């Protein structure tokens, strides 16, 4: 596994730990103070690097950030870390609870450890990288986000996924891509089973190119795009047909 999944642009933006970062210790200050301080940032602020200490599984750490700052969270977080992120580069140096990066608009989130259920749920943009494994329903209802998981993902991942790309270097659990719309799924390992209306698809040159770009963006250097299989919608459930009722 690569040492760092961050892109060059993100590193230049200050994604890496900076000496000048503003340190916020959650054992001293409250979650409210942290999020309020982050929301008070205005465009062009000099406070571009933040470090959060002692998250100790707190929920809603760094939610609703809408400025292009970097935030390093030193430890594991609870639910909805980086929820609705819009432009920040957030790294969790630990594991993340359910719904990490839910409804992300733009920016990037890197989880150094594992992620629980619903990682990247309904995400609309940006890049979510999980260096460990992700649990069930990874990328549920995703709407444009790119998700790269170095390890495995659990069952019902990409359920009703509408748009965006889910890349899995390991294996996928049961019912991958159930009721999927137009999202693209790339899995390198084995898929336990495919959900309703999700099928294996041909990897054409444009998909190799797209996937390679995603791997590069996520800092993945030791695997090739050609090692993946592509999955997506058969589009048979797009308009209701009673003869498909067994599939529902």
């Amino acid at each position, binding site marked *: 596994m690569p040492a760092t999944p961050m892109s060059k642009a993100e590193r230049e933006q200050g994604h890496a730990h900076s000496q000048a970062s503003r340190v916020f210790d959650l054992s001293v200050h409250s979650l*409210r103070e942290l999020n*309020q301080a982050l929301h008070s940032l205005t465009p062009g602020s000099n406070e571009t690097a933040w470090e959060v200490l002692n998250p100790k599984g707190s*929920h809603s750490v760094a939610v*609703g950030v*809408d400025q292009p700052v970097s935030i390093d969270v030193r430890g594991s977080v609870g639910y909805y870390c980086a*929820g609705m992120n819009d432009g920040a580069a957030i790294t969790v140096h630990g594991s993340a609870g359910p*719904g990490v990066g839910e409804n992300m608009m733009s920016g990037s989130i890197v989880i150094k450890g594992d992620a629980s259920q619903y990682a990247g749920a309904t995400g609309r943009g940006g890049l979510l990288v999980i260096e460990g494994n992700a649990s069930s329903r990874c990328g549920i209802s995703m709407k444009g986000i790119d998700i790269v998981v170095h390890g495995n993902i659990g069952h019902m991942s990409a359920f009703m996924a*509408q748009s965006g790309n889910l890349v899995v270097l390991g294996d996928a659990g049961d019912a991958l891509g159930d009721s999927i719309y137009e999202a693209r799924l790339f899995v390198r390992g084995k898929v336990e089973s495919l959900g309703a209306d999700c099928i294996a698809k041909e990897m054409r040159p444009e998909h190799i190119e797209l996937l390679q770009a995603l791997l590069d963006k996520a800092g993945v250097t030791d695997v090739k795009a050609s090692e993946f299989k592509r999955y997506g919608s058969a589009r048979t459930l797009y*308009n*209701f047909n009673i003869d498909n009722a067994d599939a529902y």
Partner: protein
Amino acid sequence: MTYRNPPTTPRKSATFDDYTLSEIRRAAATGIYDIRGAGAKRKLPHFDDLLFLGASISRYPLEGYRERCDTSVVLGSRHARKPIELKIPITIAGMSFGSLSGPAKEALGRGATLSGTSTTTGDGGMTEEERGHSKTLVYQYLPSRYGMNPRDLRRADAIEVVVGQGAKPGGGGMLLGQKISDRVAEMRTLPKGIDQRSASRHPDWTGPDDLEIKILELREITDWEKPIYVKVGGARPYYDTALAVKAGADVVVVDGMQGGTAATQEVFIENVGQPTLACIRPAVQALQDLGMHRKVQLIVSGGIRNGADVAKALALGVDAVSIGTAALVALGDNDPRWEAEYSALGTTAGAYDDWHEGRDPAGITTQDPELMKRVDPIAAGRRLANYLKVMTLEAQTIARACGKNSLHNLEPEDLVALSIEAAAMAGVPLAGTNWIPGKNGF
């Protein structure tokens, strides 16, 4: 001349009535269940089954037109830094852009704003027309999360986490392909022309403990400014209300089975959930048991039609009501002026409920550019404001007659019931008796 036995009059079955027979034939011909809009159409115990007592020797009335009868209500005072203040306790329920046309959404915003009340987005995101023309806009947070984004969350005046709705507690949504215009498709991040299924559960939480954490996230994103509502269908109103309060809601919205929907299976609408009247007392009881009545506000919807319904709901303990179907009628839905076109669609004005098909002659439940021109948002907004004004005056008339200087001072003791069912559901005595079924062991 031969004698013929007198024939009996042809008799149709009460069980297999004309509607039932037509539905069997329809199902046999098409192989698909019937989908329609609106709420339950069957006869149900309702506010019509309650009467106000008015003033008498034991209590005196207030002078109509002279003595003040307050109608205002504050929603979200429990946790929100910026609670909502409404001039009237009648709000406009969530209805999506997509199910409704842009001009119809604009008209709802205009009418609500003229009346000093709020309107609500729906399962399709927030439109500029709606935000621009609504002084107070409630932004729904739904399982589909169509169009959800933090910018709209922050420019909303309140957030309503939708767990369910009265027409289909436990059901998701469906917007058929014919209503998916380019604009609707873009807002929902889906291809044009395909059926859009809205999930029945939220994608990133299940159960009351998760809901508490989800509400915390929404509060943190919006810096604890916005009131957070939790809306449930009329399924288990006592427990749902209690759990919503426990999860941190500022406002609980309970929608009975007469509450409308854009599109759901007929079998779902008519057979799942409880009537509005049956939901109110359990929800109020839950708030009272938790010591939160009037601290967490209760909004009830589903079949509210006039000021009497408003007054009766408030007398039973709710803080505000919400209207959807009635608001659409005020805009022009099901207007007999379009009878020829309703007839061509195989229905009649007053019965049209195929809102999902997008062919609404009134131009309200459609995305057809020609049909939607029939809604003038300014005139339709004015009609809605007039209607809200009438409802408010009616409710005030009743409240004054009961000696109340605020609609919120109405109380269950002002009411009696006309039927045993309504008496049991509303927890008020059967008219002419002191019998409340289910109370005191009887």
